[in-house]
């Protein structure tokens, strides 16, 4: 312990001293569910801690112990090249991937009957429980029924608002509605024949879970501007990309949640895995999206600051190139923040399922509104799906619809696309300062 750390790229995968983020990145890059860390947990027979340590040492492993640390508070990044770290109080040890593999001590290995080690199992990642109800939808089962029941209720609420003549959602519409998120229904996406094919959509956010099964086979270009790999370890970027560009037919009972399902995805990581960034990184991301001539650039981010000249210049440069930047108005129930407050950037407010402005949604400079409460979309594996709320969720609804409109005609680009989105929006009985031109609609 206390030895110099080897270069990150020389350290073998599944080492004890590797950070959780690095382990997770490696696991996700390896495909599959990314649930195993590559390390193993050896559980000792009762009272056999000393014998187990001798056994591990006898197998040639360098053994560290929690007892080596003050108060048995282990600092994993200080165990150096140890192959095993013993937790004497628990009667178990974590084994590094390479050490376990070299000594035939993986989960697949047979343990001799007289060994002080009782079991060896793979080590798994642990995740915070999602605060929302529908973090994971099992195929069939109660959770899906609950979701669909709640969804039909929302759909009926929309139908009541939409069709004063109709009190009941027509059968055919109900079938359509039950297989799709409320947000897509409200934007009339299911009825659209457009796919976003041929249109490039850039989403500047926390990156993307590049191995998410719903996006296998999709054209995705990723770039990072924050010194971390594009792989989304936060969730926000994957969720926004899901809304703007998610698949037409997700697997199993998962409802359709994405608008422009044939668009090309440009995932620009301008926010770190902890959700933070700076103007400089965001501008670099916009610069990249403009260089790639992305017709739609979606930014679900911002801060409580006045109009920034650089953002206004960025918006203008986009428009001059026939590109459209859309940004979230912000969630402080106050005036629109930057970059959305720039006159050259389209500002998006959030709506609840009853099509009223969400309580958190900023107002003032607002150009259009879209669904932003309890939005179901993709999140990184293993959860795969989750609900989020915010003007961040409303923005990719507009970005996706913008991609569909852009597909209808090569003349709908930049400012003309902005105007078309506003002209075709569904008017709502609220001031322009809260909902702009109204609820965005797909072609």
């Amino acid at each position: 312990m206390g030895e110099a750390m080897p270069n990150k790229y020389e350290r073998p995968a599944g080492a004890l001293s590797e950070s959780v983020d690095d382990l997770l990145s490696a696991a996700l890059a390896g495909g599959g569910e990314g649930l195993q860390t590559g390390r193993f947990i050896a559980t000792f027979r009762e009272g056999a801690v000393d014998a187990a340590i001798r056994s591990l040492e006898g197998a040639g492993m360098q053994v560290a112990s929690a007892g080596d640390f003050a108060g048995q508070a282990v600092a994993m990044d200080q165990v150096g090249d140890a192959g095993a770290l013993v937790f004497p109080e628990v009667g178990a040890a974590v084994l590094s991937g390479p050490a376990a593999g070299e000594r035939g001590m993986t989960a697949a290995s047979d343990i001799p009957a007289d060994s002080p080690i009782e079991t060896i199992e793979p080590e798994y990642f642990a995740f915070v429980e999602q605060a929302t109800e529908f973090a994971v939808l099992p195929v069939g089962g109660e959770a899906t029924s609950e979701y669909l029941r709640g969804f039909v209720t929302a759909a009926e609420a929309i139908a009541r608002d939409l069709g004063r003549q109709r009190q009941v959602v027509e059968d055919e519409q109900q079938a359509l509605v039950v297989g799709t998120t409320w947000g897509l229904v409200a934007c009339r996406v299911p009825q659209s024949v457009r796919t976003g094919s041929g249109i490039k959509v850039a989403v500047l956010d926390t990156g993307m879970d590049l191995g998410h099964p719903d996006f296998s086979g999709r054209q995705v270009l990723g770039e990072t501007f924050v010194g971390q790999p594009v792989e989304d370890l936060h969730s926000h970027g994957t969720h926004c990309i899901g809304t703007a560009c998610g698949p037409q037919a997700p697997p199993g009972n998962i409802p359709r949640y994405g608008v422009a399902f044939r668009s090309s995805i440009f995932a620009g990581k301008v926010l770190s895995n902890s959700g933070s960034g700076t103007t400089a990184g965001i501008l670099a991301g916009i610069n990249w999206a403009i260089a790639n001539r992305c017709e739609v650039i979606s930014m679900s981010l911002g801060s409580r600051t006045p109009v920034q000249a650089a953002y206004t210049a960025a918006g203008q440069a986009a428009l001059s190139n026939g590109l459209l930047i859309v940004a979230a108005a912000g969630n402080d129930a106050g005036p629109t923040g930057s970059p959305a407050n720039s006159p050259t950037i389209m500002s998006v407010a959030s709506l609840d399922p009853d099509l009223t402005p969400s309580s958190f949604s900023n107002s003032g400079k607002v150009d259009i509104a879209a669904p932003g409460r309890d939005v179901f979309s993709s999140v990184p594996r293993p959860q795969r799906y989750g609900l989020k709320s915010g003007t961040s969720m409303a923005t990719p609804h507009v970005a996706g619809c913008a991609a569909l409109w852009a597909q209808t005609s090569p003349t709908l680009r930049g400012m003309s696309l902005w105007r078309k989105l506003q002209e075709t929006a569904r008017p709502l009985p609220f001031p322009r300062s809260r909902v702009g031109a109204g609820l965005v609609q797909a072609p």
Partner: protein
Amino acid sequence: MPERRWIVTASGDRSVTELAEDLARQEFIVEQVLVQITPGVIIGTAEDHVIDHVRRIPGVGNVAPDEPVDIGPPDAPIS
């Protein structure tokens, strides 16, 4: 005096590359020149006292400090 990161938006009066060279001569450490955001955005670091000077250089449109942006943690209820 500590250095901060700055966002310089060019005015378009001269080429942004020329402007970047000029800034570099004024103790402004140029990190990035974003040419797609016309007429150009230069990102770099400098001490505060250098910036007073930079604002007066021909070709400089606007100078603003780099600011943080935060969308909150993964389990934030609203984002």
